[in-house]
């Protein structure tokens, strides 16, 4: 039994980190911003915390708060030049941002360790810290999704012009999305470096941002539960596909294509939409029956 726990604990821990990144990615997508900049903010947060804690002996919690704050400021700054871009242009611009950050981490090797990575980071983060961080994040995501901010995001994603004519400032709410996304990525990046002893620039490269997008595509972009489901699928998949060891990548790819083709809203959002349709149909039927009864009497 204990063996099982030890075997799967790292898997569980990375699942928790994945949830954090998934929310960072979801935040912007939900507002209709096709940013894939989360990887860049995670990289900044990870290196920031690593340097502050290992080289300057800073208290970890303070370092994490600083990482989140840097993510906020970074998101704010990034949102200014990107305000006029949409869709694929935003994606390319934010991809360029990620590449800049990753290459900075490679070049400034005196500070970051360069391609060898940044090692000997004190392990300050245990599983329960990650659980706590995820629980708090889920709370905030839930609160925001139920607030006027969440509704404004949903409106802008579906039709920006309509949102604007209803009084929603596009620039302001896109900025809020960037800021929150940056804060989440910066914070969880910092958690990752305090968890994993060592970090290297490539961890925050293309594979990272594809993974973050995948969590949302698989789970769903409109609900709080979606990213958790997406991260769980992506964490469990390699384990389930273990017998297929050599062809794992292949099956993972096939599964992705099938999911995107048949569940375009993601597993959880797809389920919510289905249930909602059923409920709507039931209400419709009730109204019709009530009307008939009224007409008959």
């Amino acid at each position: 039994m204990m063996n099982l726990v030890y075997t799967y604990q790292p898997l569980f821990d990375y699942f928790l980190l994945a949830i954090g990144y998934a929310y960072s990615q979801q935040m912007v997508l939900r507002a209709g911003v096709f940013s894939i900049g989360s990887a860049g903010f995670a990289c900044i947060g990870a290196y920031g915390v690593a340097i502050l804690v290992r080289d300057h002996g800073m208290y970890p919690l303070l370092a994490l708060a600083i990482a989140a704050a840097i993510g906020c400021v970074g998101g704010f700054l990034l949102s200014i030049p990107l305000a006029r871009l949409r869709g694929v242009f935003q994606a390319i611009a934010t991809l360029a941002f990620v590449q800049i950050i990753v290459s900075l981490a490679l070049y400034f090797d005196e500070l970051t360790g360069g391609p060898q990575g940044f090692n000997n980071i004190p392990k300050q983060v245990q599983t329960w810290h990650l659980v706590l961080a995820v629980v708090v994040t889920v709370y905030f995501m839930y609160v925001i999704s139920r607030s006027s901010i969440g509704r404004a995001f949903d409106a802008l994603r579906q039709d920006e012009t309509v949102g604007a004519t209803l009084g929603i400032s596009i620039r302001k709410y896109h900025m809020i999305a960037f800021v929150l996304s940056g804060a989440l990525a910066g914070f969880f990046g910092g958690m990752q470096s305090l968890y994993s002893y060592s970090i290297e620039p490539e961890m925050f490269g293309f594979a990272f941002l594809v993974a973050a997008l995948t969590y949302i595509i698989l789970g769903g972009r409109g609900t709080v539960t979606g990213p958790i489901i997406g991260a769980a699928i992506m964490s469990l998949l390699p384990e389930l596909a273990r017998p297929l060891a050599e062809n794992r990548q292949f099956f993972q790819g096939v599964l992705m294509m099938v999911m995107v083709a048949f569940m375009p809203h993601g597993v959880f959002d797809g389920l919510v939409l289905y249930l909602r349709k059923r409920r709507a149909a039931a209400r419709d039927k009730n109204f019709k029956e009530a009307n008939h009864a009224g007409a008959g009497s």
Partner: protein
Amino acid sequence: MPALVLDKVSKRFGGLLAVSDVNMEVPPGRITGLIGPNGAGKTTVVNMITGLLKLTTGSIKLGDRDITTAEAHEVAHAGVSRTFQNIRLLPEATVLENVVIGFHVHVKSSLLAQLIGLPSSLRETPQLFERGWELLKRFGMQRFADHPAGGLAYGHQRRVEMMRAVATGPQILLLDEPVAGMNDVEASELGDVFNELAASGIGLLLIEHNIRFVNQLCQQVYVLDSGAMIASGAPKDVMHNPAVVAAYLGGKK
């Protein structure tokens, strides 16, 4: 409530003068008509009022407030709402959610309260949904509350768009061809709704092709042709104006 006043408003797209020197007033508590053949520039006028297009020259005022250069969301906060010629709902959202988003300009809780979930924000959401439900009742649309708006029949989508515009609590409501594609019965039902809204003090600008419908509802009609205002006045006078007849039916220039 204030009136909406356009003063010598012009719009130039490159070499094309789409709207030239348009003067118009939309007084509160009445339905004002704006008619004209296809391509006359009616929707361009609406887009300029709502801040989606910038004016080339001229000014737009709402009461004492100059909204000439205001952005779309600022115009909405000032109290101008609209519907779209080609209905634009939030297709994934339910009917009720589509209406509730209309209350955005009335949200009172601060951004911070919303971000960290203070009671003021947590209480506000159910209140807004309650008000949305009231509006559904008023328009007889309760049975569609949970339907995804994108899946509704055309006439119902029009109603949802109308409810959303009313939810913003506008002082001026711009209706861009609201009864296009409806039969006479549906149109006259909607006409009753417009009369009610006008009676509550809102100033309505009705952009229409259906002349009969405009004649029934409006006391004042403006006629736009090729971007220029060619006539204005009471409907029955305007309809007999030779320039208007020529614009619609063709005639000697």
